[in-house]
């Protein structure tokens, strides 16, 4: 067989997860015995000292693995394409993504965080599940307090619980996605302009995020369109509902003109399909009805019905750079989607901050540069990392599920999300309860 060890390992620029892991495995085998493997796996850091490593801690196995794997691909691709292919940072340092499977478990995430820190990693990226994000941000805060020599930054690219940038905020946490309140703010701005909507039905999963969405919708609709009647406000058990038909019946019977839901994953698909199937004809405003097979599974039935609030729309594509990037990504991952374009912003902003700070190891310096950064995203618009709470402020788009006028589809289904309206720098001046403590 061709090629052994180091030469090839470095030929690939950004770390290929399996390549790294393969090398770890090699050490496993040579020593034999689980116990020695333990120390070696955990201590295997010396070889990559020059690389700037980002630990990607998200589910890579289990029911949420598809979202996690897709996110990992976007991170790896972004690091390669935006940083390494352009010569790296600080005079040639490569950016490397090291994947850790947290099985969407807070406990596993904390273990993997410790492993990552021991490997000398200073940047932690995570996004799936606010529960995990909450566990990580607290653990990072405590770790940085207790171990000033090995401080780390937490780059949250998708967990949207408002608390993370409010009462639970800390200096080490940066959120690149809009939080649930910002999304709802933008969404209700759009709904407010639609005179046809008189009755709205709110439905969500019965946990903190679902409740936050409902509370925000109630509050903001009440402020912006007091004439809109909330005809339903309900929560269903998360991940336990087999058949959404009864909920759909209620929605239809309520005479609602629009549905708002924060559901994700199978709960999103199940609810959406059922609502459409049982005769609802109005728009369904969602947070997460795109990519990861959901767009493909909705297909024709969701056309013109499903609407999505998100940042960084890809239809129409904003810049030539973005188009080239997406095409390169599709060439590499024909099955994949760039459904979290903010990941590219994470890499871009981190790279800029490291360059400005002139160091990748002093995370306080890097964090100080990230704070207040204004970044021109290739997906359009500016990203402003608000220093008060480390919440990224950016343009928000409401798009529609369709197969017409698309630059890029999702799930190779011919369907995708086409931006209908945009709220620029959404919630720029929204209040925060964060009391940022800087080191």
């Amino acid at each position: 067989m061709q090629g052994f060890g180091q030469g090839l390992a470095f030929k690939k620029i950004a770390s290929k997860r399996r390549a790294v892991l393969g090398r770890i495995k090699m050490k496993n085998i040579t020593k034999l015995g689980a116990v020695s493997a333990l120390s070696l796996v955990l201590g295997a850091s010396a070889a990559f000292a020059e690389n700037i490593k980002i630990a990607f801690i998200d589910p890579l196995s289990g029911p949420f693995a598809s979202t996690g794997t897709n996110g990992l691909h976007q991170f790896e691709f972004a690091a390669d394409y935006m940083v390494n292919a352009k010569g790296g940072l600080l005079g040639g340092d490569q950016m490397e993504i090291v994947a850790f499977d947290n099985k969407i478990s807070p406990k596993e995430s904390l273990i993997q965080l410790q492993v990552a820190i021991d490997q000398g990693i200073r940047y932690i990226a995570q996004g799936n599940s606010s529960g995990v994000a909450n566990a990580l941000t607290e653990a990072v805060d405590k770790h940085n307090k207790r171990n000033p020599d090995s401080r780390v930054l937490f780059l949250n690219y998708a967990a949207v619980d408002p608390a993370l940038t409010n009462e639970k905020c800390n200096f080490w946490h940066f959120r690149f996605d809009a939080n649930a309140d910002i999304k709802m703010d933008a969404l209700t701005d759009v709904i407010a302009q639609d005179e046809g909507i008189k009755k709205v039905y709110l439905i969500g999963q019965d946990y903190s995020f679902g409740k936050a969405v409902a509370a925000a919708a109630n509050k903001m609709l009440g402020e912006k369109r007091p004439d809109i009647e909330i005809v339903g406000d309900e929560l269903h058990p998360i991940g336990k509902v087999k058949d959404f038909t009864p909920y759909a019946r209620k929605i239809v019977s309520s005479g609602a003109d629009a549905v708002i839901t924060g559901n994700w994953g199978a709960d999103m698909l199940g609810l959406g399909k059922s609502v459409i199937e049982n005769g609802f004809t109005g728009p369904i405003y969602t947070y997460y009805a795109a990519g990861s097979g959901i767009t493909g599974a909705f297909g024709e039935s969701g056309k013109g019905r499903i609407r999505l609030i998100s940042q960084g729309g890809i239809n129409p594509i904003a810049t030539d750079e973005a188009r080239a990037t997406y095409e390169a990504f599709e060439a590499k991952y024909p099955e994949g989607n760039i459904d979290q374009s903010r990941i590219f912003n994470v890499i871009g902003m981190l790279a800029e901050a490291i360059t400005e700070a002139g160091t990748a190891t002093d995370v306080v310096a890097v964090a100080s540069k990230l704070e207040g950064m204004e970044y021109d995203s290739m997906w359009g618009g500016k990203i402003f990392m608000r220093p008060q709470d480390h919440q990224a402020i950016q343009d928000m788009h409401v798009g529609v599920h369709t197969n017409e006028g698309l630059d890029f589809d999702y799930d190779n289904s011919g369907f995708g999300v086409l931006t209908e309206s945009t709220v620029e720098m959404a919630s720029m001046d929204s209040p925060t309860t964060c009391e940022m403590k800087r080191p």
Partner: protein
Amino acid sequence: MDLILVNLIDGLVTGLLLFMLSAGLTLIFSMMGVLNFAHASFYMLGAYFAYQISLALGFWMGLLIAPIVVGVLGAGVERYGLRRVHQYGHVPELIFTFGLALLIEEMVQFIWGKNQMAYSVPEVLNFTAFAISGNSIPAYKIFMIFISVAIFIGLLYILTKTRVGMIIQAALSYPRTVEALGHNVPLIFMGVFGVGTALAGLAGVIAGPVLGTFPGMAFVLGSIVFVTIVIGGLGSLWGALVASLLIGWITTFAKSYNIEMEDVLNAIGISTPENLSDSVFRDFWSLTSPQIADILPYILMVLILIFRPAGLFGKRQS
């Protein structure tokens, strides 16, 4: 009133689907005394196989072939796995099926990946059969009811009217005697296991397009199937039917009507505490029936086991 009718139909669909799963499970239990934790996994396999077949040969061939493939697989599992573990006793058997469920889920992910499959209702059935005051009843649901009822009648006929059914019934209660009469009891066991899993597979084939075909579909349904047969009484086909319909209707109606805990408690004479928002029980007071609809069957099961351990129609205790 109209909504009640609609809910009755929806609950019937859910209940009958559950019955197709629980019928096989309860047959397997009464034969072999083992609760097959992997039963819902065969349901999942049914959906995935049918999806794969439907890509090449269309939905109807999937409906025909997939359950057979699942049944053959099930029989293989009995012959080469369960029969071996059988000698160690019931607990290892149960744990074997538990492990099998995990393994099947991993295998499905290995083969088909982790995303939702675009397995959908065939065009012929993709229309609204009729509507009751704005609530459309899709034709596919009528089709599901039809299939389930046909299966139930067929099963009942085979078990009570045919010679094979007689032998199976006898083997349920007196395996030794039946063996002594010259019947191949292990073969009967394998057959029943195969048929039971094929039924689960069939349920998967027809449920996949409406409830989604994804690696977690077995987990979502897994334990509720047990709940069904425990409530109905282990080993009782009628019990399984009644419990399935009961669960179907209870969950459907609980989801359809917002009954609030506060109202219930007030109605039975407990008044709302004054400063509810500070109370540690605030979440309890604000419970609504849709919130807990899908855990109602568990409450029902625990209550039944406490007061009538044999279940509604069961004869044996454990």
